[in-house]
């Protein structure tokens, strides 16, 4: 009961001139030799298997059929390996109402011919997950990546060579409905940057003043930034997208779980930010302190057709942590605008987006470290 066979290859001697409805199948049942599972494309899995066909001089029909597996018919290819010049694939035909196809092969002699059959097989795939343990200071990560092979194709693979888009092939058997988790990357000292972000685009207006939000804290999202490059002891290949779970060394020979996030594919040289959780020890209180229409321009009716605004926005940032932190603050001003006065430096990310890097010292005996941003700006030519 060594699993079930779902894919069959049968060589049929070309005895009858006309293929009858009840097709004759059977001459030899060639065993599958080397099998390769190629997982380099995240969207489809390519199976390559080698089989030895007993070919006779003349026309041969080889029947390839499958059941309870899902094969993309148009993807099936046959490659003759031993005598490519003497063995010719003439045509492929698909019998009605059958999960099968018949290769018509012409051979110039009697050969035990090794062929490679390849096809796209559905429901066998791979996932990638990450597990990282940060040190207590949160400056570096012990990063591990696991390959998860999932086989729900209907086919058992006793022994196959598994290929990814890089690295060595490895031998692995995987049965139908089996899942395997394999460690495939270990990077023990990956530098990491911790990032706190307050982004006006993600904070609803009623959360601008957290003291007026009942029942819940307005958290500041915290992320870990990792760069896929040589300095990080990575950078050899793109990191596949997948779920990352982050832990931290707690200094007591144990860890705590920090959080988890999905990372997209990280090409070499690029960075990824993993959102682990919310800080409730940094509090941002934003207020609009002025919003006035100025420089009014009127039409003959006396109606205002064009105006500028005079606006003041303040944001108080308090750090209740006993460690310093750098908060990235994103502010937006729509339309045409100019800054009359701003007490902090900012980078213009795009026409409407301002980014502030605000360094906050640790809290002291006197209380939380506090800074206040004041932006005095004008929106121009508002209609």
């Amino acid at each position, binding site marked *: 009961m060594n699993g079930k066979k779902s894919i069959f290859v049968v060589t049929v001697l070309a005895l009858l001139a006309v293929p009858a409805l009840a097709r004759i199948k059977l001459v030899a049942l060639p065993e599958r030799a080397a099998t390769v599972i190629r997982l380099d494309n995240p969207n489809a899995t390519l199976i390559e298997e080698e089989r030895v066909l007993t070919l006779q001089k003349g026309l041969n029909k080889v029947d390839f059929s499958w059941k309870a597996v899902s094969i993309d018919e148009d993807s099936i290819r046959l490659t003759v390996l031993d005598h490519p010049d003497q063995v010719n694939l003439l045509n492929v035909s698909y019998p009605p109402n059958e999960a099968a196809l018949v290769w018509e092969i012409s051979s110039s002699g009697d050969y035990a011919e090794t062929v490679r059959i390849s096809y796209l097989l*559905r*429901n066998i795939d791979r996932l990638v997950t990450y597990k990282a343990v940060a040190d*207590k200071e949160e400056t570096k990560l012990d990063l591990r990546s696991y390959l998860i092979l999932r086989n*729900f194709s209907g086919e058992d693979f006793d022994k196959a060579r598994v290929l990814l888009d890089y690295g060595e092939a490895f031998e692995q058997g995987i*049965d139908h409905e089996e899942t395997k988790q394999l460690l495939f990357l270990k990077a023990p000292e990956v530098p990491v940057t911790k990032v706190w972000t307050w982004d006006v685009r993600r904070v609803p207006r009623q959360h601008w003043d957290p003291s007026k939000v009942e029942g819940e804290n307005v958290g500041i999202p915290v992320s870990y930034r990792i760069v896929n490059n040589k300095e990080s002891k990575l950078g050899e290949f793109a990191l596949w997208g997948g779920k990352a779970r982050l832990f931290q060394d707690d200094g007591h020979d144990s860890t705590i*779980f920090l959080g988890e996030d999905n990372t997209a594919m990280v090409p070499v040289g690029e960075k990824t930010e993993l959102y682990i*959780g919310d800080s409730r020890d940094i509090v941002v209180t934003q207020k609009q302190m002025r919003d006035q229409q100025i420089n009014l321009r009127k039409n003959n009716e*006396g109606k205002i057709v064009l105006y500028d605004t005079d606006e003041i926005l303040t944001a108080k940032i308090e750090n209740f942590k*006993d460690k310093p932190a750098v908060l990235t603050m994103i502010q937006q001003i729509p339309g045409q605008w100019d800054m009359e006065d701003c007490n902090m430096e900012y980078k213009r990310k795009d026409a409407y987006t301002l980014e502030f890097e605000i360094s906050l010292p640790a809290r002291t*005996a006197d209380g939380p470290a506090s800074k206040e941003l004041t932006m005095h700006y004008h929106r121009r030519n508002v209609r």
Partner: protein
Amino acid sequence: MKRKMLFIALCAFTAAPSVRGKVDLVTLPSRERVQITIYNSADLTLVREARPLTLKEGNNSLQFSWENTLIDPTSLEMLPKAHADAIHIAELTYPPRVRNLGLWNITSEVAEKVPVEITYLTSGLTWRAFYMGTLTSDEKHMRLQGYVRVTNNSGEDYENAQTRLIVGKVHLLDEIAALARRQYPYGSPVPVPRSVSGPVVMEKMAEVTWSRRAGVELAAAGEMADKKEIIKEGLSEYFLYTIEGTETIPTGWSKRLPSFDTDEIPVINLYKYDENRFGTVVVRYLSFKNDEEHELGETPIPGGNLKVYRNLDPQQHLSYIGQSSFKYIPVDEDVELNLGAVSDVVVEPKLMDAKTENYRFDRRNNISGWDDVQTWTMEVRNTRDIPVKIEIYRTFGTSYWKITNKGVFGEFSKEDLFSVKYTILLPPFSKQAFEYTVRFYQGTRQEDWKP
């Protein structure tokens, strides 16, 4: 008749590394130590078990099963705590057509007893904080007692477990309970899952769970009275509470543990009047600060429910004042506990005068702008026998306003574009009144408004 839900079996490797050829059982190592780290922002617990494994040189196969539990199988991890370089954990297999079972293939260069650590995430263990506040009869001080209540519905008895609690908001993509219930650990690429021979197993599970519950009660009864210290420390954005010693919390049980007990926290009796938030009622707050001056400030205070009582006499008879639930309070943050609407402190706004003036007309002599001028008196009464602090918020529907205050109005500040705040301290049994006049600039009169 104790049942182990988590089984570990060390198996000798026979010819093929396949599960189907059923493996021989060599040892069944028991749990030496267990540590549970329970989160409160999500149904999530990190479990760390130490078990000794007797390994052979060469290939070893280790079977781990977790029927009737709420373990996330994708979180399983094993780490050798000795000979780390000589022991290679090649793979973890979730065999087909078997649920709640994992098989580790381990290659060992040593043949001896090796301590290993198995970690995983489970759901079903939760904790929450709650508080009792007892005010002195003059309501100037409060005794604050914090408790944590740990509940185990995980399906697994954690005996003599080092118990740790995490305060903080952790980001999760999937619920651990949902991952635990999955048919396949990592799901399946097939859109509709194939049927499995499930129902029979389910029946057995239910029966077993029931028989366990009956056996467990005795063990727990003696544990409830222990009073232990909780050690608190900050880690990343979280706070870690470690309960001294170990705890046994059988499944189905909860346990209340004291977290802190602080006497004599100076409190301010704060009352707020803000029509925009509460309507026309005065809401009572208790205010203090999570800092050293207030006998606190060592760690943040996790959010929870607080019941407030007042001490009536030396015999310690109590009167229940009300309850409030509060948010997470960082160190040095001001705390304001909402105890609900009251009638013994009164704020009475009265519109005393309303007029319009400064009309502007357009070319057709239609009205294009004017001022609305309102005069309000605010009467504030404290009918209590203790001094109180009152914050009165007034919110206007426009940002084009000017205000003048008259009388004893305490501390005045502009809150934001639309609102102002008056802060008044009132002695016991007293009243006070002040007046403000606010001018609203309407229509084209707004062009004359200056900040």
